[in-house]
């Protein structure tokens, strides 16, 4: 005790000697320069904690097959998706998520190894090693939920954020049976947060989320820091419907179900192309526009994006297809009126459920010919009791069916037997026609 007291006294009395350089803090600024210098070094050196997400060079596969045989007999090949790569090596699979969000500067690398196997010797820095097949999954995003029942692995789900938004019947059943916990900590949609304490309790061996690149909304930094194996799904960034659906292979890789994924995807792809082929030669392409204004700004999907691809493949003439923006464009209402006044069809007007509601928002909508002729369609025919739109859920996994819906809207004579599934022609009033 005495020793400590003496030490403290000494420390209290200690001063920098007169010859100490200025940055040690002997000047009239005290310790300020020292602190600044330390902080600067810290920043320049980069944060000293391990960073999981980092750009990394591709691993070179060791030559020659192993004697034990191929641990990954089912392999998937990507044909549309540009947001991730999937490669197979003798001892592991490697997934790189290239565009987790718009203008992302980071990529995420995952090394998938069989359970119990030791990680390969050449794990790139920043890569995350995941033992597969994974058995306990927490899902923080709706965008890839539909792939789980499609692959037959929905039973591995132990937690989901935003349970009330779920439409997928298989998952709803599991939720009702109490087998999937709510892991949301408030916020909805793109802004939802995860309840980390719940995650520690659930002990998942994989957490799948989406990233936005907006620090306040993103959950993966916290999850990575807490040591969870965290996958960032970027399928909502893909600009073609088939590419979005191809992320089924991303999920499948974690379960060694690539064979199922390939089979389902090929069927879907075939069906999609067959339908697109039927409308390709059509001369009559109805003109169409999308969305509705919020506070006099009309957010119109860009011509290089997901909606535009769908509309083109469905044999419609999207009025903003000349623009190659992938995201939304903020247009003034008068520009939209000028170009779309005589358009044949109006699709996806916000959350509107009836024509009356549309008029209630802004009576000037009646200036559009599509409104006058009643050809207004919205993709909100299937909404969960909690407000989740099934179009963004199971629709992601069935682009062929979405396309059939759209062809029904633009060329009903081509698909007489198809009934609109996610879309509905807006009735004038609720419950009426």
């Amino acid at each position, binding site marked *: 005790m005495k020793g400590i007291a003496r030490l403290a006294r000494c420390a209290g009395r200690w001063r920098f000697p007169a010859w100490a350089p200025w940055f040690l803090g002997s000047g009239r600024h005290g310790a300020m320069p020292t602190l600044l210098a330390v902080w600067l070094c810290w920043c320049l050196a980069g944060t000293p904690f391990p960073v999981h997400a980092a750009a990394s060079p591709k691993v070179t596969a060791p030559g020659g097959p192993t004697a034990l045989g191929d641990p990954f007999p089912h392999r998937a090949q990507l044909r549309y998706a540009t947001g991730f790569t999937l490669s197979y090596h003798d001892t592991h699979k490697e997934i790189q998520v290239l565009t987790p969000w718009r203008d992302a500067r980071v990529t995420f690398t995952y090394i998938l190894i069989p359970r119990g196997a030791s990680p390969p010797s050449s794990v790139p820095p920043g890569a995350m090693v995941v033992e597969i097949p994974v058995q306990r999954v927490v899902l923080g995003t709706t965008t890839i939920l539909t792939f789980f029942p499609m692959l037959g692995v929905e039973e591995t789900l132990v937690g989901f954020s935003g349970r009330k938004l779920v439409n997928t019947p298989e998952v709803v059943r599991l939720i009702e049976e109490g087998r999937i916990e709510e892991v949301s900590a*408030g*916020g*909805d*949609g*793109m*802004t939802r947060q995860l309840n980390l304490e719940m995650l520690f309790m659930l002990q998942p061996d994989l957490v799948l989320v989406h990233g936005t690149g907006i620090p306040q909304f993103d959950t993966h930094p916290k999850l990575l820091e807490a040591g969870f194996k965290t996958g960032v799904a970027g399928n909502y960034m893909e600009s073609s419907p088939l590419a979005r659906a191809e992320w089924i292979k991303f999920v499948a890789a974690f379960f060694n179900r690539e064979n199922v994924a390939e089979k389902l995807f090929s069927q879907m792809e075939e069906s999609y192309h067959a339908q697109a082929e039927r409308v390709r030669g059509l001369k009559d392409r109805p003109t169409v526009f999308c969305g509705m204004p*919020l*506070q*006099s*700004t009309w957010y119109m999907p860009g011509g290089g994006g997901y909606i535009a691809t769908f509309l083109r493949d469905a044999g419609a003439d999207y009025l903003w297809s000349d623009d190659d923006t992938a995201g939304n*464009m*903020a*247009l*003034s*209402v*008068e*520009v939209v*009126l*000028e170009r779309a*006044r005589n358009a044949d069809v109006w699709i996806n007007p*916000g*959350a*509107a*459920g*009836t024509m*009356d*509601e*549309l*008029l*209630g*928002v*802004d*009576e*000037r909508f009646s*200036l559009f010919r599509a409104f006058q002729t009643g050809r207004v369609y919205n993709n909100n025919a299937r909404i969960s009791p909690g*407000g989740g739109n099934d179009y963004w859920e199971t629709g992601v996994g069935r682009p062929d069916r979405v396309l059939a819906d759209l062809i029904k809207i633009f060329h009903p004579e081509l698909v007489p037997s198809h009934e609109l599934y996610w879309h509905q022609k807006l009735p004038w009033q*609720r419950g009426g026609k």
Partner: protein
Amino acid sequence: MGSWENPRPCTGDPHPIPRVSPLLWAALWAVLAGVFLLELCLGSVTIPFKSVLAILMGNSEVPEGWRQIVLLFRLPRAVTAMLAGAALGMAGLMMQTLFRNPLADPFVLGISSGASLGVAIVVMAAWGLGWTALIQKAGISAGASLILAATAGAMGILGIVMALARRVESNVTLLIIGLMFGYITGSLVTILFQFTQEQQMQTYITWTFGSFGGVTWRHMTLFAPTLLVGLLVAWSLSKSLNAFLLGEGYARSMGVNVGAVRLWIIVGASLLAGTVTAYCGPIGFLGIAIPHLCRMLMKTSDHHVLAPAVILVGAIVALAADLLAQVPGARVVLPLNAVTALIGAPVVVGIILRRRHTMEVGA
């Protein structure tokens, strides 16, 4: 006390209304007419000036599409901008006089936040029934409930700030209290929206960007009369406001019923700021910048002059801000609040730098 609130030497009662050159008034009217015409002519869609004039004259030979754009989109937008600018300027003027503080405005004192809270509660409550359905079914009464909610929210916050004002000596402290109330209501709104759906939140966030374009002619039937009444109330308070400039004691000595006038000021400012906020979103900086601009222009603090000047200048500045927000010639539109801050903030900084002593008023 700074010169900004010292209209002229006290020469007894009644004060003569200071003379302002009629030329200045004429110039203001001319500028207003100019920006008003510009607002009608410039937009994302190019319409020749001649055609715009023809449309305004009722000439029917102009393409129908252009007629609709000018008469159904640009005209209500221009009228909304003028009314909103005038109303926010007037509310700011009343706040600055009431608190005898050059930095007071509906935004700073949390009134706009109070209005936001009122709107958020209505939007939340309406979501249960389907918001759009509610507007549709109830028609104008839903719009009225929006105005009432915004005004009630605004009055609630202003009332609390005023009640505290009686106990707090320093106006700076009062401003800080107002700011803090703004944060409290802001966080209440955030908490409320944790329980709503994404769509509603998006609607609300876009609403906070501010816009004059959301008011249609049908909304105008309620929006315009409410603001006109509010402006008239404010204008009619000019004499009492002048008395307030020199302190409540002085006002009382002049026979002003301080309690009643204070209440009228609160009601008037809340009605003006609340209504604008309900329809156009919380628009910043106009409320604080416009009264200062007018004092500089008119070189007086007499409300008989300032009130009409604030209405004129407010209309001009709001129209100009809206013009900039629409980026003439481009297809994109900017959030209005970004532009008002860009115009308003330098004005405020300039005023503070030019009249450093105004900072000490009431402190």
